[in-house]
């Protein structure tokens, strides 16, 4: 039963990965990537790694792919335009490199390299796979785990800074201009009309600065 399930999910994984790189519409590529991640999660479950499988679905298929789809729709991309001799040449070279890589891996495996003797399986821990990982994560891997939070924080700050990009130099100046202009415009207006008069006086000043 398990080898059959493995074969089925492996076939889905390879087919959807191929469609990711072959389909010309980026949205379809992203959706096939979700399918690939889900079948990979099923493979993790078959291997007894329940925690990793669930995290795969939640983080990859849930969070990362939503980010991808959001950016694709934000940029409003159509189909890719492909063609030309150079593109064809490069495509051929790419497939040759891929075939060489797979052949290399298969040859190493056929010679029995990289495979040591299999360690006998111990009975499952009392808290299950997730409990065992949690214990390990908060004892031996506590420091890397804390560093991970730093990595995420830096990535978040970096993403925001990069995305704001060129608007940053102009942004504060434009935002500060009405605030600087309002006190200058306010004193002539306050003796005449009081608070209602400040608003019309502030609005033209904003237009001039913009």
């Amino acid at each position, binding site marked *: 039963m*398990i*080898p059959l399930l*493995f074969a089925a999910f*492996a076939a889905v994984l*390879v087919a959807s*990965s*191929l469609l*990711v*790189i072959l389909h010309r519409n*980026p949205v379809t590529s992203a959706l096939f*990537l979700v399918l*690939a*991640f889900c079948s*990979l999660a099923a*493979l993790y479950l078959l*291997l*007894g*790694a329940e*925690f*990793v499988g669930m995290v*795969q679905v939640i983080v*990859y298929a849930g*969070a*990362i792919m939503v*980010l*991808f789809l959001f*950016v*694709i729709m*934000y*940029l409003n*991309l159509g189909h*890719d335009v492909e063609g030309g001799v150079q593109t064809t040449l*490069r*495509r051929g*070279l*790419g*497939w040759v*490199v*891929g075939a060489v*890589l797979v052949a290399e*891996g*298969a040859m190493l*495996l056929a010679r029995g390299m990289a*495979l*040591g003797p*299999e*360690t*006998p399986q111990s009975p499952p821990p009392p808290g299950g*796979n997730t409990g065992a*990982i949690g214990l*390990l*994560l908060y004892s031996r*891997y506590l420091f890397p785990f804390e560093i991970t939070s730093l*990595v*995420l924080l830096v*990535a978040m700050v*970096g*993403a925001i800074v*990069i995305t704001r*990009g060129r608007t940053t130099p102009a942004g504060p100046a434009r935002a500060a201009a009405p605030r600087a202009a309002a006190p200058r415009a306010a004193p002539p207006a306050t003796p005449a009309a009081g608070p209602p008069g400040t608003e019309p006086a502030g609005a033209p000043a904003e237009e001039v600065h913009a």
Partner: protein
Amino acid sequence: MIPLSWLLLLSAVVFAIGVVGVLVRRNALVIFMSVELMLNAANLAFVAFARHLNSLDGQIVVFFVMTVAAAEVAVGLAIIVNLFRLRETVFVDEVNLLKG
């Protein structure tokens, strides 16, 4: 039980598909998805060896790889959005500012 060599072969195939995607496609977003495929192929190898060696350390490494991948996607997509604002394209052939 699934033999380790099947899993490693599957991992090699998915990794090679990712490499081909990076080499063949011009769309920066699809190139990025291919990089994700390669990361996942490495994760599959980690989990396979964790089962083979009857040790949980491989699964912990997968957890850290996923964290780094999430950070990488956030920063990379921000760069792509910025690139699109600057050049109105996400095709890597048309980004040739360094070409002289």
